[in-house]
């Protein structure tokens, strides 16, 4: 391994090997958690989900979050990670940062009050810890320091890695709107034709971002666009984004008691921001 410039690359770039370097990485994670989750920490529906969701839903959501964090650490993360142990440690560290940020903030804005039962507080913090830990994991990227970390994460450039990135991107944008009542209301307001148009628009937007529009920070693409690209990346990406949306809606109890038509309409609505998120995944995650 060649020596890098010590002045610049000390705290970021390679894996943290000293407490000081790791503290800087944790600070980055904390910033990421706050930047990403402040809008959600200030959303009423997110507080309410914490106490009206069935406990088993909260449990599975938290466990699924842990798995997501592990894979996020493999494609990005707030510091470089070279092996599975490092990825697991980083996943738990991101969760620690998220719980601290969420609990501290909820207390500061008076959502967590002294007389509340412990289970209610735990529920609120657990719901908020999901987006906050997601933000902690992509903190380096949000602060524009992800490049060095990514160079080491080879999984990013495989097909499965790219598909996972699209899922992460879809959750990134989908999560900010999924808990709101508006998602359901919009689905009720739209006609079936408008729903169809939105699905087609979502796929078109995703395909355009992936193949036509070159954003800064997106790596140059050598692969063909057109039909091959549509079948190989855009359609699977849309499918993954919609599955991610269905999972979030189900976890939030938003599909309970709905008929398939209304579930599909909600997915069409939430699928639009999720598709944009999947498209810009390489820029944000």
């Amino acid at each position, binding site marked *: *391994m060649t020596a890098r410039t010590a002045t610049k690359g000390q705290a970021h770039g*390679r*894996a*943290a*090997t*000293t*407490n000081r*370097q*790791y*503290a800087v990485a*944790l600070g980055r994670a904390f910033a990421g958690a706050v930047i990403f989750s402040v809008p959600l920490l200030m959303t009423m529906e997110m507080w*309410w989900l914490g*106490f*009206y969701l*069935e*406990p*088993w839903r*909260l*449990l599975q959501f*938290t*466990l699924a979050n*842990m798995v997501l964090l592990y894979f996020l650490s493999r494609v990005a993360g707030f510091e470089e990670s*070279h*092996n599975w*142990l*490092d990825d*697991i*440690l*980083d*996943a*738990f*560290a*991101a*969760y*620690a*940062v998220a*719980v*601290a940020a969420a609990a501290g903030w909820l207390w500061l804005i008076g959502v967590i009050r002294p*007389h*509340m*039962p*412990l*289970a*209610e507080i*735990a*529920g609120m*913090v*657990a719901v908020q*810890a999901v987006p906050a830990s997601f933000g902690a994991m992509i903190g380096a990227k949000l602060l524009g320091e992800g490049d060095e970390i990514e160079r080491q994460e080879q999984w990013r450039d495989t097909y499965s890695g790219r598909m996972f990135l699209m899922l992460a991107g879809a959750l990134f944008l989908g999560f900010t709107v999924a808990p709101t009542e508006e998602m359901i209301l919009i689905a009720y307001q739209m006609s079936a034709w408008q729903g169809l148009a939105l699905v087609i628009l979502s796929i078109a937007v995703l395909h355009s971002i992936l193949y036509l529009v070159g954003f800064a920070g997106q790596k140059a693409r050598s692969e063909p666009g057109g039909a091959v690209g549509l079948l190989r990346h855009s359609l699977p990406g849309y499918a993954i984004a919609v599955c991610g949306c269905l999972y979030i809606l189900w976890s939030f109890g938003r599909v309970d008691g709905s008929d398939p038509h209304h579930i599909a309409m909600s997915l069409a609505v939430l699928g639009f921001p999720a598709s944009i998120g999947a498209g810009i995944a390489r820029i944000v995650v």
Partner: protein
Amino acid sequence: MAKQQRDPVPPLEWAAAAFGLVAALLLLGIIGREAVAGNDESVPVLVAEVERVAATPTGHVVEFRVRNLAGQTVAAVQVEGTINPGPEEEVSSASIDYVPGRSQASGGLIFTNDPRSAELELRVTGYEIP
């Protein structure tokens, strides 16, 4: 640096990960206990009780507290207070957004007559399951 030599993991990384593990287990434990108790299907039991009565320039305020004794969270809780039930009665009502399971929430009813010198009835008349 030799390739087979692993990067040392700083102690702070272990500490942060351990804190995360403990936080996760704690949250999972508290929520899991609720899941095992499993009385989510229970019928909400709502009790409204007077906390204090105060005279203000705009009327007599009865501050009340609604306690939910069951595990089921309720929304849009309507509370109605009646002074002097009968032909001379005065009715006031209030609604509370949420009363989570085994929790409490507060509100106030405003009367023109003094509830302290009369018979005051307080009850929860309805709710919505969120």
